[in-house]
């Protein structure tokens, strides 16, 4: 039987698995999480007790349906499920997996990547300190561990997650000192109009959440710096829309400017990429059904940041494309229905992307002493000094200046680095280029890799 490997067990991966299993295939699902669900519908450990309504709010029904669907596939033994494992590399038809203690290989005929997204973060002076996190981290801490990341938290950035995390933290009893959105209100309203036209209900829910934040919420702000002491953040210094300076005391800062697609495996698998002005990041190139290359399909936020509902649709669509390419029968009516819904999701998502933009000017204005690459401790000034020797090429700046050479492989610094290269050279981010992915996709423990060899 044809072996289809699905990487990721979030909304896209689970829907793809169900679609393939429904057609009589037995997909292999590899996931980094301990329990299927992905990040937005992440499940806490088994012994935790909060009900779905508390964990997922208005999305509890969707989360429950998705978890139930995957649990049923497992109970009926219709998928091979490999949790707690990362695909760290690919060679001809073989995925190289590592778990915390073991290395394994998994052969495949076709590959569906549903690798999701991560917070898109812009550096803020002081962000290397302990106690500065991503917005996603604040949400994961609450959802999966029942903890707040600090006693007095400032959330800053832009995007739907900013409002959502703030509301969730407040509801759970955390002290949220301020919610600072760098997108000006006028920008948000223009984008919000597109959002409301595509998905009025979702847009209204977001506005209601924001209303609950009251005076904590400020739009059109600019972040100056995180003041830190030996134990982490002490205050966030920021300017309001009118340019007045403010200081908010806090012990924790969480940052995020919407999301960035996780594309390293797509790159290693041979996908082409294009710079997206809409999403201000490099995104894989596929056809409408998610075909990226021969036998390679992409779905979910790792392809386009459409959110969980869009990811479920994209997962089904990519799976049907895969089935059709295998010559197996699919339901064309269902495919065209889902594709139509996906188009609506995309209109909404484009509205989101324009309402909550990447803070380009804030990054360009970063003082030289700001740490740009958290892994390697490379500063904005060091990058600016590298460009005359390296030229305006992201991979070359990495090679000569170490930006993106650390453990995270540039995931959290490469967009800011491209912005600064672009500022220095007056070339566009598209011309500056994209960091090529290098295996292993995540740090690969030697002990685990060697265990793979020992077994041979």
């Amino acid at each position: 039987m044809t072996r289809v490997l699905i990487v990721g067990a979030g909304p896209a991966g689970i829907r793809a698995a169900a679609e393939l299993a429904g057609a009589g295939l037995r997909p292999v699902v590899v996931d980094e999480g301990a329990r299927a669900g992905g990040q937005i519908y992440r499940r806490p450990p088994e012994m935790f007790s909060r009900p779905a309504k508390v964990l997922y709010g208005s999305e509890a029904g969707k989360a429950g349906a998705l978890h139930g669907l995957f649990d049923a596939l497992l109970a009926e033994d219709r998928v091979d499920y490999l949790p707690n494992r990362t695909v760290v590399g690919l060679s001809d038809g073989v995925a190289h997996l590592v778990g915390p203690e073991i290395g394994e290989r998994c052969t495949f005929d076709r590959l569906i990547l549903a690798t999701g997204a991560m917070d898109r973060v812009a550096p803020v002076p002081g962000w290397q300190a302990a106690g500065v996190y991503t917005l996603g981290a604040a949400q994961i801490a609450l959802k999966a561990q029942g903890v707040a990341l600090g006693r007095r938290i400032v959330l800053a950035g832009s995007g739907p997650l900013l409002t959502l995390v703030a509301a969730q933290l407040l509801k759970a009893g955390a002290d949220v000192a301020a919610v600072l959105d760098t997108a000006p209100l006028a920008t948000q309203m223009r984008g919000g109009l597109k959002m409301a036209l595509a998905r009025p209900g979702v847009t209204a829910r977001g506005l209601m959440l924001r209303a609950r934040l009251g005076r904590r919420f400020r739009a059109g702000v600019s972040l100056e710096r995180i003041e830190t002491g030996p134990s982490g953040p002490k205050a966030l210094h920021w300017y309001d829309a009118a340019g007045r300076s403010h200081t908010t005391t806090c012990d924790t800062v969480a940052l995020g400017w919407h999301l960035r697609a996780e594309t390293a495996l797509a790159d290693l698998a041979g996908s082409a990429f294009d710079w997206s002005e809409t999403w201000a990041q490099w995104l894989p190139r596929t056809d409408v059904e998610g075909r990226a290359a021969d036998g390679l399909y992409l779905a979910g936020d790792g392809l386009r940041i459409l959110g969980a509902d869009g990811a479920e649709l994209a997962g089904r669509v990519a799976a049907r494309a895969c089935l059709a390419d295998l010559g197996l029968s699919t339901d064309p009516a269902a495919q065209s229905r889902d594709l139509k819904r996906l188009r609506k999701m995309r209109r909404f998502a484009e509205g989101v992307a324009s309402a909550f933009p990447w803070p380009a000017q804030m990054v360009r204005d970063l003082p030289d002493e700001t740490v740009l690459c958290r892994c390697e401790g490379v500063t904005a000034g060091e990058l600016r000094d590298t460009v005359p020797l390296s030229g305006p090429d992201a991979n070359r700046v990495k090679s000569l200046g170490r930006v993106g050479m650390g453990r995270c492989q540039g995931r959290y610094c490469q967009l800011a680095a491209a912005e600064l290269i672009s500022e220095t050279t007056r070339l566009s981010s598209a011309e500056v280029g994209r960091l090529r992915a290098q295996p292993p996709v995540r740090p690969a423990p030697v002990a685990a890799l060697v265990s793979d060899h020992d077994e041979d």
Partner: protein
Amino acid sequence: MAVIVLGGGLMGAASAFFLAQRGVQVTLVDRRRIGAGATVASFGNIRRSGRHLSQLALARRSLDLWNQAETLLGRDVEFRASGHLRLIFDAESLADMRKFAEAARPFGLDLDELGPGEIHRRFPGLGPSAIAASFSPEDGSANPRLVAPAFAAAAAAKGAMIVDSAPVSQIRRNTHGFTVETARGNFEAEILLNCAGGWGTTIAAQFGEPVPLNTFGPQMGVTEPLPHRILPVVGVWSRDHGAYFRQVERGNIVFGGAVERVPVDPDPGFAQVDPARLPVQLGALSRLLPAIRDVSVIRQWSGCEGYVEDSLPVVGASSTTPGLFHAFGFCGHGFQLGPGVGATMAELIATGRTEIELEPFSPGRFAQKNTTSQ
């Protein structure tokens, strides 16, 4: 005198620098970026232990230049003479090492032989099952990402013209010398120096000098940053592919070896690592450094290297074409030789002679062999 150097790897960039230093008018041409082929992928090993004896004089000259690199280049390319330790695990390799040490002594290479006790005392955690080791205190490493751009920038400061991102479409020989047509214009000079690495054989062939060369990519990797506690470059005396590693001052352990290299198509020449070989490689490394099992690999890479059939490089004046010189095909062990090759080629081109014995690397050696066998 005007020289066009083809290939902006370490060999070409160093040659351009030393030519410019002699007041020669130099144009350095590369199809892509300076130092972005085999050089950037290199391990950065400044090693003489185990090197073919015919290269030791050149290697000595090169080591002297590595020691002056920061002064010559005006920037730190991270040359550190932190020593080169080669571990020995069996009697056969111990005999090989002793034989080599004896033969290498006249070339100014003094290898210390260490017993197990001394290995453990001086290098905690390295080779616990080793029966002996050689230690070469003057050798070490440098940063392969920085060195070619640094030589090119220093050459430019001395008046060389650097033309990167310029694929060569045609090379023509004429009465004045050579015309090189590139995507960024045509260049003319009476001298042409071929430092095109794995691509050098095509140029040599055009001038009737066949060099049997294949292109392969090494399997390189690096760990996360760790406390900087391992000073020497570490390798192994072995008749098989040995593993090797070094810890850079920032703490990452760079490693390679122990597995077959991967064939690379020189066009386009983008070498890929093979993740399937990593577990085998790390297994071999953990014999040299068991504590590597506690940490993670964060990146792998490869590059396009030229391997000549007889495992020796092609260095010297062309045997067919006046004004043409070659320095390519360093078979994965050229990094140490780079500055020495650059200085020697500049000397040879500018003065017509050099003290360094280049006969074993003669560009004509394969043509001669064919003639003899006919």
